[in-house]
């Protein structure tokens, strides 16, 4: 129960770090969703374009986060900037992939009837295809957010914001009684954020999915 006392003692810290952590992950998810959906829309009709964009965004995801933070440190300096950019890069592939999957799964018959009703290309995309693909896209975004929450903790290496700071402070004090509490507090903080984000996404998913396909 010593750990609970520790959490209560540091409640202010926990809240502040939590807000920072949520802010950087939230911003990254938002940016990679906008870019990712746009890339998906631009490429889903051509096999070549599709494969190229998936190969490139996929290779971002392959680069280990520690290495990517360090490589971005040169051009962007210490702090939240390298963390934000790295998280956006990691978030792209799942969003692009799910956008492409979702758009390609739309029943051709539905698109045909949209054409028959006289909708132009833009209207087809905005009123028919994207709403139908939306559940798949938002699932991708939701799971990506969870993965990004974990990666953001490593951002503390480049003085990034969030709970990673507690974990690395704990590491620096290995052997002292407070070390375990610090690391646990960091991990628990990330898990709490994961549950909260997941609940928010559940709500967003319910609200933004058209009633007919819920």
């Amino acid at each position: 129960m010593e750990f609970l006392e520790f959490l209560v003692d540091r409640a202010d810290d926990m809240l502040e770090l939590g807000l920072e952590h949520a802010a950087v992950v939230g911003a990254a998810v938002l940016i990679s969703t906008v870019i990712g959906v746009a890339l998906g829309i631009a490429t889903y009709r051509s096999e070549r374009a599709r494969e190229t964009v998936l190969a490139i965004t996929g290779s971002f995801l392959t680069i280990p986060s520690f290495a990517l933070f360090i490589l971005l440190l040169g051009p962007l300096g210490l702090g939240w900037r390298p963390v934000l950019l790295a998280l956006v890069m990691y978030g792209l592939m799942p969003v692009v992939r799910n956008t492409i999957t979702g758009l390609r799964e739309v029943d051709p018959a539905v698109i045909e009837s949209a054409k028959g009703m006289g909708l132009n290309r833009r209207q087809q995309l905005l009123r028919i295809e994207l709403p139908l693909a939306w559940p798949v896209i938002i699932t991708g975004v939701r799971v990506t957010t969870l993965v990004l929450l974990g990666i953001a903790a490593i951002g503390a290496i480049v003085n990034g914001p969030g709970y990673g700071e507690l974990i690395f402070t704990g590491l620096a004090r290995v052997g002292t009684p407070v070390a375990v509490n610090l690391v646990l507090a960091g991990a628990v903080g990330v898990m709490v954020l994961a549950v909260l984000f997941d609940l928010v996404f559940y709500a967003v998913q319910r609200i933004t999915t058209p009633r007919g396909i819920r």
Partner: protein
Amino acid sequence: MSISTSERRRDADVVTQTPVSAGRRRGWQGYLVMPAILALILLALYLWVSSMELDSIEARSLNAQSLLTALGEHIVLAAVSTVVTLVIAVPLGVLLTRPFTQRVRPFIIGVLTLGQAVPTIAILVLLAVAFLFLGFQAAIVGLVLYAIIPVLLNTMVGLEQVDENVLEAGRGMGMSKGRVLTRLELPLAVPVMLAGVRTALVINVGTATLVTYINAGGLGDIIVAGLSTNRVVVQIVGAVLTAVLALFIDYLAGIAEDFLRPKGL
């Protein structure tokens, strides 16, 4: 669309960390793009470093001997942890997709999905600070704990995607449960499981960068040496080598995936 198919599709969407594999077989030129890019990156790195005057600290970190040691340790860490991950995760995945788990399966998948948010670095550091467990074995435990979730998800989703009608046909032919599993389900799930192997490798190569913090070596040593002595060249060499290694291993795993996929799938 029935409820079960839409559920299944959503399960497949939860496996975000799976690398993309080319849908069709690449021509031989397709196989040359990645090695060519990586070779150019390494060449550029070599030329850049050799054009600089290295001070004694930099020279100590950046010689062939220490780089090769770190690289060797890194590859061993990734290989051992991947094998252990697969040995645990694949049978567990098979077990968790048997009919008796049907009720709890959505719950299990939900928990595993949330579990992907646990920061790797927290697992590794916790082993060190809570149990004073350091070094190679601790690193393997940490790597396996983290990589097990995506591989398990992959195996479960892969097995669930196998068409129920095919299994029904097998049972109709008089196959026993065991034979349905080994002759139909597992072979049909091979592509997804290969993707799981690749996922495990990529994740473990990445996470192995962090085990330097629990004294288990690897290329992370180079980066951390650069950070602690404030030598940018050393940091960049470490980071670029790590990235190139990860991309190259993913490339090799992608080739293996193309060739090991059963014909006809």
